[in-house]
């Protein structure tokens, strides 16, 4: 094969030279980074320079922080003495408001408003959910969103790894020693706020991950492409975050400005057909896309021009993230709330664990399934996501789409994206005709996780939303899609052409586009091969008669 190829290529260099119009010189950012790395190495080698800190301020030397802080807000007040505008900046971010107005659909989104199919909704459950809020004290609707000291600086800027906001404490870490995890018999010492404050620094995979790796109620549960294996990943798991290689922090791609972090799941950037983002360039392009560094013609001139020609239809992620949950951890794929609430003969909570130690059943939550190395589903996506929000009547209750990615083959802004589709079964209020909001966590008599009574928990949750529970509910099947964009594989693990270009390939569900190689013209094929076969039979018969006749003659 090689020989045939090189013969053709050699013999007809002329024809080929025409092809080279496709050749644009390009180096990957990784190449460039490697080059600079070398320079730095050489320099530090030569001068035997001792390692300097990359920050110009050593917080452990600040007397403002040499205090025995009693609470988180006390630490924040100390931070604000120097960083006077920080809290105001944070106040305007999604991390603080948990609200987002989608400019295209005009839907009011954000964690505060969206009902998902994991723990479903924040309302009436704030004491627990706010363990991932960048604030202190959000336990109900009376929370003061204007108070600067309520901002939690250290959850993002901790470098000790010892700071942890505990679910149930409304966004606070534990100030006293307490049993954690609950009923485990293990005790967490009181948080040493002074140590944490003296060691603040830049955000890291660990700080971002302390919430984003644990979404949906546990490690690796929600996204599928974000879990604690990214604290210290190897190259195979993520080429950019590779701890022995590029070692990117989250912030390297998710560039922040005034505490506003770029990149949003509520209004993702599905396509960007411009070159790499250059410093100083105007406009409001999202700096956290692949294209922002790699441009939309990222493949080298030595590779097939077909690769760059695919970027008008495919998201980079489609080929370069061949599967999600590629680390050691399984991600949750389904959650069936309808089976929750079963108790053993003593009226006690039941928990059944699978062979990998993950819950398969929990009386509090119902049934789950988990998977690892999951092949994504693929959808057209132009960046607009429509949610089914509280109060929206659902026409077809056989399957409720929690969110719906928009776009199709004709849409020039749409690309084929890999998604994790999370499938659930959750309460629907038949009288009010809306997805249900129910009260899960709390020490009161309505919390489902204490009393296992759907009606009580629904009545409480719906009331918190300002609606009277109708008393009639059912469980509806729901689907929620999550764009897959992390855990980018090394290029040698990227998808190969034939994984899509064949019958029943990866893009079998994408039907509104012609793709060679997947049995597109069955009638023409049948007809063509039939006529070819008849011709063959014809000439064989003809030739046979000739041979017989000539032998006789």
């Amino acid at each position, binding site marked *: 094969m090689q020989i045939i190829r090189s013969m053709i290529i050699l013999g007809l260099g002329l024809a080929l030279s025409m092809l080279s119009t496709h050749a644009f010189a390009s180096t990957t950012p990784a190449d460039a980074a490697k080059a600079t790395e070398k320079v730095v190495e050489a320099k530090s080698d030569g001068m035997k320079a001792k390692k300097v800190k990359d920050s110009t301020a050593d917080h452990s030397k600040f007397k403002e922080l040499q205090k025995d802080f009693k609470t988180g807000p006390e630490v924040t007040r100390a931070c604000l003495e120097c960083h006077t505008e920080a809290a105001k900046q944070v106040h305007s971010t999604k991390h603080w408001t948990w609200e987002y107005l989608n400019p295209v659909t005009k839907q009011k989104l954000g964690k505060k408003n969206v009902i998902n199919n994991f723990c479903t909704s924040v309302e009436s459950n704030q004491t627990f959910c706010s363990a991932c809020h960048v604030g202190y004290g959000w336990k109900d609707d009376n929370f003061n969103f204007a108070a600067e000291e309520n901002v939690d600086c250290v959850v993002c800027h901790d470098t000790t790894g010892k700071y942890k906001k505990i679910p149930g404490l409304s966004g606070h870490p534990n100030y006293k020693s307490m049993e954690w995890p609950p009923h485990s018999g293990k005790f967490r010492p009181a948080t040493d706020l002074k140590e944490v404050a003296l060691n603040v620094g830049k955000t890291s995979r660990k700080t971002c991950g302390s919430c984003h790796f644990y979404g949906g109620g546990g490690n690796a549960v929600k996204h599928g492409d974000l879990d604690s294996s990214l604290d210290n990943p190897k190259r195979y798991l993520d080429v950019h975050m590779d701890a022995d290689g590029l070692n990117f922090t989250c912030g390297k791609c998710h560039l922040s400005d005034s505490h506003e972090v770029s990149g949003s799941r509520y209004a993702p950037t599905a396509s960007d057909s411009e070159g790499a983002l250059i410093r100083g360039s105007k406009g409001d392009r999202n700096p956290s896309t692949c294209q922002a560094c790699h441009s939309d013609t990222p493949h080298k001139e030595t590779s097939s021009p077909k690769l760059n020609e695919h970027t008008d239809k495919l998201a980079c992620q489609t080929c370069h993230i061949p599967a999600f949950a590629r680390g050691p951890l399984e991600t949750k794929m389904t959650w069936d709330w309808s089976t929750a609430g079963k108790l053993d003969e003593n009226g006690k909570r039941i928990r059944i664990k699978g062979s990998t130690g993950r819950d398969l059943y929990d009386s509090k939550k119902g049934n789950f399934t988990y998977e690892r190395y999951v092949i994504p589903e693929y959808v057209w996506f132009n960046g607009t996501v429509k949610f089914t929000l509280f109060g929206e009547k659902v026409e077809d209750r056989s399957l409720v789409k929690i969110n719906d990615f928009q776009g199709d083959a004709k849409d020039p802004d749409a690309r084929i994206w890999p998604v994790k589709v999370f499938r659930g079964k959750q309460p629907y209020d038949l009288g009010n005709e809306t997805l249900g909001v129910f009260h899960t966590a709390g020490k009161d008599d309505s919390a489902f996780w204490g009393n296992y009574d759907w009606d009580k928990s629904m009545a409480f949750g719906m009331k918190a939303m300002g609606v009277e529970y109708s008393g009639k509910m059912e469980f509806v099947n729901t689907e929620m899609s999550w764009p897959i964009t992390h855990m980018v594989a090394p290029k040698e693990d990227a998808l190969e*052409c034939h994984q899509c270009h064949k019958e029943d390939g990866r893009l079998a569900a994408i039907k509104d586009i012609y793709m*060679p190689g997947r049995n597109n013209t069955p009638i023409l094929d049948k007809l063509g091969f039939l006529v070819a076969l008849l011709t063959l039979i014809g000439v064989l018969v003809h030739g046979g008669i000739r041979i017989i*006749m000539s032998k006789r003659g």
Partner: protein
Amino acid sequence: MAERIYIFKRFERFWHWSQAALIMFLMLTGFEVHGTYNFFGYEAAVDFHTTAAWTLVGLWVFAVFWHLTTGEWKQYIPTMEKVDAMLKFYLTGIFTDAPHPFKQTTVSKHNPLQRLAYLFVLVIINPLIWTTGWFYLFYSSWNDWGVGWLSLEWVAFFHVAAAFMMLIFLIAHVYLATAGHTATSHIKAMLTGWEDVD
């Protein structure tokens, strides 16, 4: 007594065999791209097909030039004269060793059926495969060319249809190559240039 005439010049023979090889290779790779079987692997098949297609295009440019400058294009002017005699010969005479109704000469190399068949290849199959293949190759530039309204589905359909026509032509052509004065005389002629004629 058999005599020999010089029919196919050096360029013609080179053109014929390299075209034959390329077309067969294009079929082999093309139908793999189409999804009919797995042989080279999809990516390699695409690369090979593209390279071979460019090569064939290059070859055709030379061939068209050659035909125009040498006047050899006249070999493909269709004629209905003796078509019936040719058909009759293939259906009966060939089995009984009847004399070939067509006499090859240097100025008229192809029998009337051949003329019609090759003309069909030249004016229908080739242009169809060319244009569709070309558009296929530059699929990503359609919008820039102002032909964004084209549908890949139909371009591919006609490309594949032409490929089938080529396959059918090839089968018949290879067989009829054995239907000369002797079973091998045509083939020998295409190799050496010299054909035995009656």
